[in-house]
């Protein structure tokens, strides 16, 4: 796959997320306070909760279902919880967000 433009950075709220719908399921695209963007499968490693719906702070998101905290850079739960969700490459150029969906399982 190659980089796909998915929208404007401005369409994602700061300290928030939007989802990109794909054939392989939703991908959550997060935006931090400092405008860094991260993309993860919208599936919590715990019980599949939609991470895009969580509260974002620093480089982390708190899952809306049972409050696990997931690190956005690697997609892994912050200790002592364990488990990771798949991450995807994402970048911002001239205000536009580009996604490179990962195909690895």
């Amino acid at each position: 796959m190659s980089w796909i433009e998915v929208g404007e950075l401005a369409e994602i709220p700061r300290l928030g997320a939007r989802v990109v719908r794909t054939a392989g399921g939703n991908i959550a695209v997060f935006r931090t306070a400092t405008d860094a963007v991260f993309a993860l499968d919208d599936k919590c490693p715990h019980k599949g909760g939609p991470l895009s719906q969580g509260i974002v702070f620093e480089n982390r998101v708190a899952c809306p279902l049972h409050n696990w905290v997931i690190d956005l850079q690697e997609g892994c739960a912050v200790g002592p919880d364990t488990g990771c969700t798949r991450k995807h490459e994402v970048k911002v150029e001239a205000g536009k967000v580009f996604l490179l969906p990962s195909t690895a399982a």
Partner: protein
Amino acid sequence: MREKLVLIGNGMAGVRTLEELLKLAPDAYDITVFGSEPYGNYNRILLSPVLAGEKTIDDIMLNDDAWYSSNGITLHKGKKVTKIDRRKRIVTTEDGTDASYDRLLLATGSNPFVIPVPGNNLPGVITFRDIYDVDRMLEASQNYKHAVVIGGGLLGLEAANGLKLRGMNVTVVHLMDTLMERQLDPVAGAMLKKSLEDRGLHFLMAHSTEAIVGDEHVKGVRFKGGLEIAADLVVMAVGIRPNTDLAKSAGLHCERGIVVNDTMQTYDPRIYSVGECVQHRGIAYGLVAPLFEQAKVCANHLAQLGYSRYEGSLTSTKLKVTGIDLFSAGDFIGDDSTEDIVLKDAARGVYKKIVLKDNKIHGAVMYGDTVDGAWYFQLMRDEIDVSDLRENLMFGQHHLGDSGHGQTNRVAAMEDSAEVCGCNGICKGDIVKAIIGKKLFTLEEVRAHTKASSSCGSCTGLVEQLLAHTLGGDYSQTPKKKSMCGCTEFTHDEVREGIRVNRLKTMQTARDFFQWKNPDGCQSCRPALNYYLLSTWPSEYVDDAQSRFINERAHANIQKDGTYSVIPRIWGGETNPAELRAIADVAEKYEVPTVKITGGQRIDLLGVKKEDLPKMWADLSRAGFVSGHAYGKALRTVKTCVGKTWCRFGTQDSTTLGIKLEKLTWGSWTPHKFKMAASGCPRNCAEATIKDFGVVCVDSGYELHVGGNGGVKVRATDLLCKVETEEEVLEYCAAFMQLYREEGRYLERTAPYLERVGLSYVKQKIVEDPSGRKILAERFYESQKYAQVDPWKQHAEAEDQGEFVPLSKIG
């Protein structure tokens, strides 16, 4: 070059300080540690269960050699420091090893006290302090028969219990006539003695040791008055003395312990000290919980953050003898200025005594059933006026029912397989195993690692007791003030007061003002801050959607599969065919899989896709519905019964009253959810007495009830007052809600709020002060002007549907 930090004393307090420091500033220092014991750092508390054969030395290691090396710490094991040269800033050990420092941390612990009697240095006479001592006791238990333990305090009894379990014949000698007299009153002491005697221990009370007899090895103990008993092993457990030798020899100011200030600094500003060797504001502590608080503060200053202070601790104690539950805190003996409440049920083996002074809990001692210990301790620490709780105080916080774990109250007697946390299915055995295996000390840690007590919280008391029982102290409650979250040292009350007084009107100014440690805050403080700002500045504050939990952000409840539920407001629970038809149409149009009547007399449309929400709301809105706020920390439902319109017993029109109440209060944000009900007569079919605000109609008017809830911990309301007109009901309701809105802490429902401030206080504000009541009600009406906007309609009509639709679709 990095500064050099040297730690003397490789024990619990010192190493804890390093752990805290590494979390704050991993690279600040080159660290060197000296410890006179030949081990890494271990959990001294658990020496008792090791002696009793319930744990092994491996189980109790906290940090092994690998931990030191992976953190770049130089560890000198088995080396005792004998000299500190403060001018050259060098410490030197017995064998001449030395290290220079920029900052020095003294954590030398304490020494067991050995009573000055002849024979006290004979082989076979030992103390109970470290692994070496335990090894010697185990050795003795294999070769000898008779053990005498001098000292009937915590340590002595744990030693005695352990030696007995190892097969020795054990006699405990105590100078006083009550065991553990510093922790227990005579009644509880006698009950404890009885259960220990049932386990086969012998006691010699009120006996003073005159000499230890023997030539090459101890043979016996002789008491004043001439009695002599046989002994092959004598354990001295009569107390500890802060180990100040080294500090004194270096010329540091010491009294009973090494004197430190609130930043844990000694008189030499380069030298800090923590642990049992320390004397802070006149007190030397002998339990781990306060030492860990000291460690935290000390680390903060070593990391040069400089914002935290140690202000002393309140401690409570537990005996770690499997099968025995006891708890004590504060002054439980009392004097002329105090009064006691006592419950004694000898057949059940239960004894509780609470000492009150000026209507506040001054101390408590409990035997047998200790599950409320944490609650009493909290009431004591927070200096709560308990006059209003007094009737029920003895029966504990749970006497009205606590869902999820039935009647369990004897933690010590629980089977390992007994379920403690009903939400997450965690058993006693799992929790104890985690406390030991994962080296947990606090409630927060147990929550994080086991999930027990992390959901509905109804088992918190049990988990705290398990912690106390496993580790012997109370690790969840010691800090005198509880900060809002890890992002700040300030409490909920301080933050809210600061927002008001300093006129802070945005999230950012509030976080800057209080110097939040994490610039963004976290998932627990952000929603709280958002609420405080909103309730303080209703007309000005711009709500921060990203600081709201998803339910409030999306105005619907998220379900386990990521879909949402929609619950329209049904005023007072009364509806009509047109409304029902509209709901039915919406349900069909959006293929809602489940339609259900809720526990709150409304209709729930479950399984709605997020992107359908705005369209569905638009349809509902056209049919006249507004949001039911079933998702919010907000006014929820007003349940009603049919009342006098139909019911043969009805005394007033409770349905219409309920609708009026709901029209008045809908849309308001509250610290936690707020539920109401109006019943037409004392038969109370609307369950008004388990609501935050409940009205029970009577022939002569309306009884107003406050502070009830169903849920996790059922609490029936308290009667606030009786009024005569509907207008009054509405005004009192507005005033009460406003008081709670202004004073309730975020996520504190009216029940705990009421218990915290006391019913008398609320009566004083709402009932006895008519002008104050009117002012409160006015403030409520004012804030409602901005709050009564239907969020569903707003979102349905909004141009930006970003929250509800995907950013894009690909593939």
